[in-house]
């Protein structure tokens, strides 16, 4: 274990002068790596890598702590980092890159309650001393000082619900497997696959010990001596970080035999999947770990009875494991003070889509969606009217603007026809076509269906085709009835959660935006101007007759005399949008 002296040193380091660069995947893809090296080579003091602090919209992010004062710089790139360096060398502030003087100055963090993501972007993810200095492993120490059953009781008392999607009570899930004898497995599900969701990745990359600690607590309580963190090969940094963190934990007797002298053993390793959405489903995930094709199997038998290699297995989401650590750090009663009665605690979310400040947000459950989207997210990215918020990814649905005062919790979202899911929250503005959104999700689900059961394999294909008919003007009035009929068939008859939830985006968007569907079907019009086949391009009186559009048109559909208004022959137009893009005076409308 880490000595008191090491903890004190780490604490001093965290509070002392220090420059940090966010080097999670998001930061790296925005160009943080050369920034980090430039700063390191600049001889301006301690430069350290940290994970992601959640402000996607400001990446790459450099934080400078000097004399207890804090400066957050955003958008620092290879081309402008030299200005930051010279400012720092002269003891100045680089004003044009400065985002804020402290996190608390940012609207993005007002209203957030960062517990599970609390260390992300603040500590070096692979420095155990920093993790411990921030209060890490107190939760495990507390848990192993308790009787196993008491640990489960506290888990149940905390009311923590699975953060992966379904929201099942974690403590109850544990109790199923705790009663089983013999070999048992514990799994962290990090196979995050929803488009627009990346909170699991961020946690794995930015604070791996929080997951490991949570799993160790779970292993102690349930009597599992072996565990896996399952994630996708597309997350190489997360895999690398987790593997390194696991080996550090082993070195410090936080994993392996006789953990912290308690007499309890827990072996943990990382398992990589090939990146199939369906492998987030528990039984498919277990098949994948066993080296088989990742397709789900019917329940019963449940994983708690017959899991990996036939042994009882307990699967919780990576985020859930992080929350386990939070529960045992705070204690169940403190934890319950956050969130709502039915949905206690906080939830980490990925704010994405047409939102001004995309990023990772953690709020107490029960926070109104409007607060998340407007106060934290800053509203739509281009200031247009917000149309809806999509929650739950391809298995979820939409919440229209007029319902944004809805509190974020499992039951309320479900009652509105959506789900919490893993925490993806995608903002859609008036410029997006809701039918196209449903089509996009169905396309995703169809490609990610494992192909095992008929309703999902064949049904999602036909649903997708119907949506394509609607967005291309080929649908008639009967299509909507068929869409509803087949949707409910797929929901009722599919083998696993993927198929059972696949039509949700259709039913939910139909519930709130049926008129938009009808515009497509009856008037052959896409109000948002997204569906290519339904768009009509027109040249307005603004036309200056420059001929740019006519020259660019690939099918010679545009004609007109120089310096006179041009015309589009609609019978020839293939609606490619080239003229719209090239017009220098925006004379073309759609």
């Amino acid at each position: 274990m880490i000595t008191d002296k090491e903890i004190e040193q780490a604490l001093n380091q965290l509070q002392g002068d220090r420059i940090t660069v966010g080097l999670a995947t998001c930061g790296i893809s925005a160009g943080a790596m050369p920034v980090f090296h430039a700063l390191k080579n600049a001889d301006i003091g301690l430069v350290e890598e940290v994970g992601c602090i959640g402000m996607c919209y400001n990446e790459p992010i450099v934080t400078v702590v000097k004399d207890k004062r804090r400066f957050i710089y955003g958008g620092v790139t290879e081309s402008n980092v030299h200005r930051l360096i010279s400012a720092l060398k002269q003891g100045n502030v680089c004003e044009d890159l400065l985002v804020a003087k402290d996190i608390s100055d940012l609207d993005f963090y007002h209203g957030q309650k960062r517990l599970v993501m609390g260390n992300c972007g603040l500590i070096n993810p692979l420095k155990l001393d920093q993790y411990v200095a921030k209060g890490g492993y107190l939760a495990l120490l507390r848990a192993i000082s308790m009787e196993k059953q008491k640990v489960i009781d506290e888990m149940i008392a905390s009311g923590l619900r699975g953060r992966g999607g379904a929201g099942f009570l974690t403590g109850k899930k544990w109790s199923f497997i705790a009663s089983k004898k013999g070999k048992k497995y514990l799994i962290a599900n990090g196979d995050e696959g929803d488009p627009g969701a990346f909170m699991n990745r961020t946690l794995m990359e930015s604070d791996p010990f929080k997951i490991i600690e949570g799993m160790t607590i779970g292993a102690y309580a349930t009597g599992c001596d072996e565990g896996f963190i399952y994630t996708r090969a597309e997350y190489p940094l997360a895999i690398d970080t987790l593997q390194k963190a696991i080996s550090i934990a082993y070195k410090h007797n936080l994993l392996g035999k006789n953990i912290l002298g308690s007499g309890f053993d827990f072996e943990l390793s990382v398992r990589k999947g090939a990146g199939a959405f369906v492998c987030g489903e528990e039984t498919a995930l277990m098949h994948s770990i066993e080296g088989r094709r990742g397709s789900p199997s019917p329940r019963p038998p449940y994983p708690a009875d017959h899991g990996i290699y036939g042994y009882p297995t307990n699967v919780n989401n990576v985020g859930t494991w992080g929350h386990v650590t939070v529960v045992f750090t705070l204690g169940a009663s403190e934890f319950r003070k956050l969130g709502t009665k039915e949905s206690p605690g906080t939830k980490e979310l990925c704010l994405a889509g047409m939102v001004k400040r995309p990023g990772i947000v953690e709020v107490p459950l029960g926070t109104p969606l409007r607060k998340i989207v407007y106060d934290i997210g800053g509203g739509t990215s281009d200031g247009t009217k917000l149309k809806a918020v999509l929650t739950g990814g391809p298995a979820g649905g939409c919440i229209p603007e007029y319902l944004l005062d809805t509190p974020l919790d499992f039951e309320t979202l479900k009652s509105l026809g959506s789900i919490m899911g893993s925490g993806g929250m995608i903002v859609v503005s008036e410029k997006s076509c809701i039918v196209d959104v449903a089509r996009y999700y169905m396309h995703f689900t169809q490609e990610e269906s494992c192909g095992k059961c008929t309703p999902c394999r064949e049904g999602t294909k036909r649903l997708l085709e119907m949506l394509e008919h609607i967005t291309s003007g080929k649908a008639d009035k009967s299509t909507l009835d068929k869409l509803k009929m087949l949707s409910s068939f797929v929901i009722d008859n599919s083998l696993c959660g993927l198929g059972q939830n696949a039509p949700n985006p259709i039913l939910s968007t139909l519930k709130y935006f049926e008129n938009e569907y009808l515009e497509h079907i009856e008037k052959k019009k896409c109000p948002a101007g997204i569906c290519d086949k339904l768009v009509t391009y027109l040249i307005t009186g603004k036309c200056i007759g420059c001929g740019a559009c006519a020259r660019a048109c690939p099918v010679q559909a545009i004609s007109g005399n120089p310096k006179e208004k041009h015309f589009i022959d609609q019978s020839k137009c293939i609606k490619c949008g080239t003229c719209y893009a090239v017009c220098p005076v925006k004379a073309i409308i759609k």
Partner: protein
Amino acid sequence: MKSMNITINGRQTTAHEGEMIIDMAKRIGIHIPHLCLDDRLERIGACRLCVVELAGSPKPVASCTTPVREGMVINTHSPRILEARRINMELLLASHDLNCVTCDANRKCKLQRYAEELMVRDLRFEGDRIIRPVDNSSVSIKRDNNKCVLCERCIRVCNDIQTVHAIGLAGRGFNTRIEPPFGQNMKESACVNCGQCVISCPTAALCEHSDIQNVINALNSGKYLIAQTAPSIRATLGECFEMQPGKAVTGKMVTALKQIGFRQVFDTDLGADITIIEEATEFIKRMKEKRSLPMITTCCPAWIKFGEQFFFDELHHMSSCRSPQAIIASLVRTYFAKKIRVKPEDIILVDIMPCTAKKFEIQRPEFMGEADFVLTTVELSKLLKQLDVDFIHLPDTEFDTPLGESTGAGVIFGRTGGVMEAALRTVADWSGIKDFTKLDFKPIHGMRTMKTADIDLKGTKVKVCVVHTLGEARKLMEEIRAGKSPYHFIEIMACYGGCVGGGGQPRGSSSVLEKRAHALNEADSHKKIRLSHKNPSALKIYKEYLGDFGGEKAHRLLHTKYSRREVL
């Protein structure tokens, strides 16, 4: 076992704890449609055709994977369920080629049957269909994914029962398909041609590679046509003509073959008797020399290919003796051709076999030019129907001589345990036990996939083992490889039940297979001679032509070699 009270379709009944709804329903005469369910295979709940409604459950459940519970109230045909099944069928049909009339499975297809029963009349979901090439590369099995419903029965048979892993799922979503790994074709794959996938396929996505037209051409070629029929055919051919399972049709079969133009109809059973003479000689020699034990039978061509692929380091355990089919083929081209003074090349030999792998066996380089075509039982029935044979009303005819006389020992080759029993009868007789019925063969009877016995041959204990299915064979071979096999003599058959369950047979449940095996046992018990080495025709052939049992000439004509095959 706990008994439970169940209400199904308004009827009160009882069920056993752990029983699945569909099985309970079947027991009381309710047939719930299903495509992916197969009693011998792991249940995967994939087709969703067997959904039923449960009181208190918001969604239908798959009856094949849902166990009964006390007080369960089940409705197997509510309007909602019927509509769900109909939509399910329409979805399957929307991706299907719908060439029913010209399909191999016409009138035997389960998809067709359920579409009819559910009265699917219009297809509401027509759209894209992926047209896939037909894989004709294998000499045994044709694969047509345009007819596949992805029930995965073939995969489960190939992987779980046979452990061959020649095919699996590829692709995802609508692009999901069944094929050999890395897009290989069937010929390149590890397929051992057993055809267990063919008889488990509910449609015609998998069929035997048809040689019917080749045989019709041969019948009209003016050449000297000879047929040989394997032991099991007499016990299964009748089923293709709607006769009861377990009814031997030996005489009708010979008549039918004669009627369509075969000059001679020989009995592969004679080849079986000669196989036993050679194999028993070889076994006694190996026992004496304590060499290459256990010895393993080699009548099954699927097992041979399996061994050559996966246990090439243990091939010396295999008997060098040819299969009965190959023995008859060898004798037809040599001994018999000479006898009737016909040039061997003017003879066309057609083998009627229970087996798709025999199509592969006759094309092995060492057997090239001996047998010309293999027709499976199912193919023969199709040929007979095409050639206007009114099978049920045919009179009986005896096999032709000299390659038509056989013993009871030869007949039981068609079922699991038969080869072993036949061999032990001869070995026992040669050891001085004059009444083999005193020997206890019971432990190697029946349909268990692994059966063992200790046979006492006048003080010499012979430990024998009989397995069917290649998964069981794999276990035995791994034991041999580890040097831990306690056995002296092993019989391996690739197909469940032995040849009565062969990949070229009409489809049948386990109980049907037992009836077929029983028919062979009956035929055996009615034979006057029940020891292979007492077959007068066989003895005459040795005397006139082959010389000593296991002698030089016998070795040249009746034995063979095996070699390593590389597959993925």
